């Protein structure tokens, strides 16, 4: 880990601000720290590409420390932060990563959030350095705007994209309506989209959720979905379809029909057999020229589960499953694991590719606030060939 002078300054300043604000202003505060140490580093990538990401070839240990801290002042001002100090990897080119650092002011009809924050939305979630305003004054309205847009919460790279996201919600006798509009501004281009979500309770047993959105730049639908739930006692059947237009005409201008969409339909059931057992099934079919389908069924009993899956695409078929479970080994210890086995038949009768994955762990609760977990992973498949690693996870909750 390259802890140079700038890095030390950043970390020191960050924690100085947190500690001083806590000491001066805090009424109530909460701090949790978790640490991962894993060895060897996750290295399924070709070694020759490691240098490309400056991951540090000589490091065999990958570690990460997460610090989550929140403090409340006068019940309506909250300071919240999540930060991470850890090894560099292909996603993070900096050892010190601030994933959240904002102040939230809650007023009677208004909530204001300033700083680095995540944007959780049905159509888009990301991380921005900016502002969020929520108000209930006119039904419910929310707007986020800011720069440094990141689509991955751990991404520490610089990004000059900007996001503006606005939504409003209203409840009517015909269900709940939410209108969303968002724009990603990048290199002077404005990528504008808008969508509507409607939730409707047809009767006590049946609920329908509908998504519809529009890409104004390509003048095409962007994302559509209908999902229906029907309940009967402890059983539920659900079905629906989803479709998203991928605007690829900029990339492959020679493709004759440029309005490509991915339409998948699905149907499934969920049943609670008794207080300890559940069973879930799902069948998905993608309505494309080469029909692809995927089936998954799982059964859970207490903390044990078995899952079977199969699927077919083109001439290839995939089968397999997983068993997992955990049990208490004394008052403060828990042991668990997961074993997965799969086979892929690549082209009829010529080739069969197998995969094996094992994950085992032991969790020990040292006290009410401190626990640690030892885990090991083993993989054997065509990506890793043979690979294994182990690690420790420690968490403190203050």
């Amino acid at each position, binding site marked *: 880990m390259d802890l140079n002078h700038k890095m030390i300054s950043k970390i020191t300043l960050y924690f100085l601000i947190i500690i001083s604000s806590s000491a001066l202003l805090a009424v109530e505060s909460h701090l949790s720290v978790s640490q991962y140490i894993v060895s060897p580093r996750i290295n399924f990538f070709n070694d020759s590409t490691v240098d490309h990401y400056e991951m540090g070839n000589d490091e065999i240990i990958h570690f*990460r420390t997460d610090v989550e801290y929140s403090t409340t002042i006068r019940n309506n001002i909250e*300071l919240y932060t999540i930060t991470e100090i850890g090894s560099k990897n292909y996603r993070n080119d900096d050892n010190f990563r601030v994933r959240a650092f*904002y102040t939230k002011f809650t007023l009677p009809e208004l909530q204001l959030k*300033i700083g680095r924050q995540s944007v959780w939305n049905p159509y888009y979630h990301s991380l921005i350095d900016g502002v969020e305003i929520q108000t209930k004054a006119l039904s419910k309205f929310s707007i986020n705007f800011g720069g440094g847009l990141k689509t991955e919460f*751990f991404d520490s790279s610089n990004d000059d994209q900007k996001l503006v996201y606005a939504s409003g919600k209203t409840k009517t006798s015909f269900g709940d309506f*939410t209108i969303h509009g968002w724009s990603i501004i990048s290199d002077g281009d404005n990528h504008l989209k808008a969508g509507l979500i409607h939730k409707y309770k047809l009767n006590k047993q049946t609920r329908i959720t509908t998504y519809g959105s529009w890409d104004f730049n390509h003048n095409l639908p962007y994302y559509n979905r209908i999902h229906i739930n029907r309940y009967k006692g402890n059983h539920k059947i659900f079905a629906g379809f989803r479709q998203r237009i991928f605007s690829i005409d900029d990339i492959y201008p020679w493709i004759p029909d440029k309005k490509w969409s991915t339409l998948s339909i699905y149907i499934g059931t*969920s049943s*609670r057999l008794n207080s300890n057992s559940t069973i879930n099934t799902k069948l998905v079919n993608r309505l494309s020229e080469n029909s692809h389908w995927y089936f998954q069924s799982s059964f859970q009993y207490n903390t044990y589960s078995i899952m079977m899956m199969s699927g077919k695409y083109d001439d290839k078929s995939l089968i397999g499953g997983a068993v997992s479970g955990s049990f208490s080994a004394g008052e403060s210890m828990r042991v668990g694991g997961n074993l997965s086995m*799969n086979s892929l038949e690549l082209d009829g009768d010529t080739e069969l590719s197998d995969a094996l994955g094992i994950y085992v762990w032991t969790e020990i609760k040292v006290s009410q606030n401190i626990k640690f977990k030892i885990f090991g992973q083993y993989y054997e498949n065509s990506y890793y060939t043979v690979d294994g690693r182990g690690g420790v996870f420690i968490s403190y909750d203050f």
Partner: protein
Amino acid sequence: MEEEECLYLMISKPIILITFLFLATAIGQDSIIFPHNYHIEDEELECNVCHADVEMSSSLQGSLLPLMEVCGDCHDVDEDCEMCHESPDDADTYPVSGSTSGTDFSHLFHLQSFSDCSRCHTQTIEDDGLTPRPEWQSWNCSACHQENKPQDHDITWKEFHGMSLQEPEDPRCATCHTEKFCESCHSQSQFEPKTHDPNYMFTHGLEARVEVLECSTCHHIENDCRKCHQQNMILPLDHTVQWTGFDSAGQHGTEALDQPERCQVCHSSYSCERCHGGDE
């Protein structure tokens, strides 16, 4: 250096703002002296005698605190100001409106399940009106909701909870969960498999073809797929020798016409033009 300056600015501005607001709001405030313990224990008053609207309240949009006229039912509110107002000369207008917690709450719904107010308002009975009144704390909710999950957290909640979150940052989630809880599944830098079984690296191709939009719940398709497949030279398992045959187009032609969005994860138009000459 520019990046460092931005970081310092980003950190320091909110802190200065917090300090200013804290100091501004802490100076010269009136407050009400109301001993809940005396009214509940000695006078044996029920909560709804003063908080009459609570039983029918389904949200925290309006105030549930009593108006001064309610106090006037028992007290001389025109003469004896100091009995209730800490700073009678600087008396504020009461009640202040609405919730400041950021979380909405239906008293109506909860009182249908249990009628004992002290189940949540645990410290109210000890409130003597002199010591600072206990502020509402989020753990009052989590005391029950950590164990008693909401009705919609059924067995398919994990799979479909995204659709239930119709509005941005649904305040109901914050009752029990912090952002880190969301991130623990919705981020990819996990050392332990959180949402996928250990073989998912091997099997994900099928699910990605059938339900690519499921992937997009957490993964940015255009970026994340490319990061692994393109930058690390990892070929999809179906890119075998038959993929582009010497004597025929192989499978890739059909696939490219059927699912070009899959190709664009790694290939630009140049990949096609290199063989096809840009005319096909």
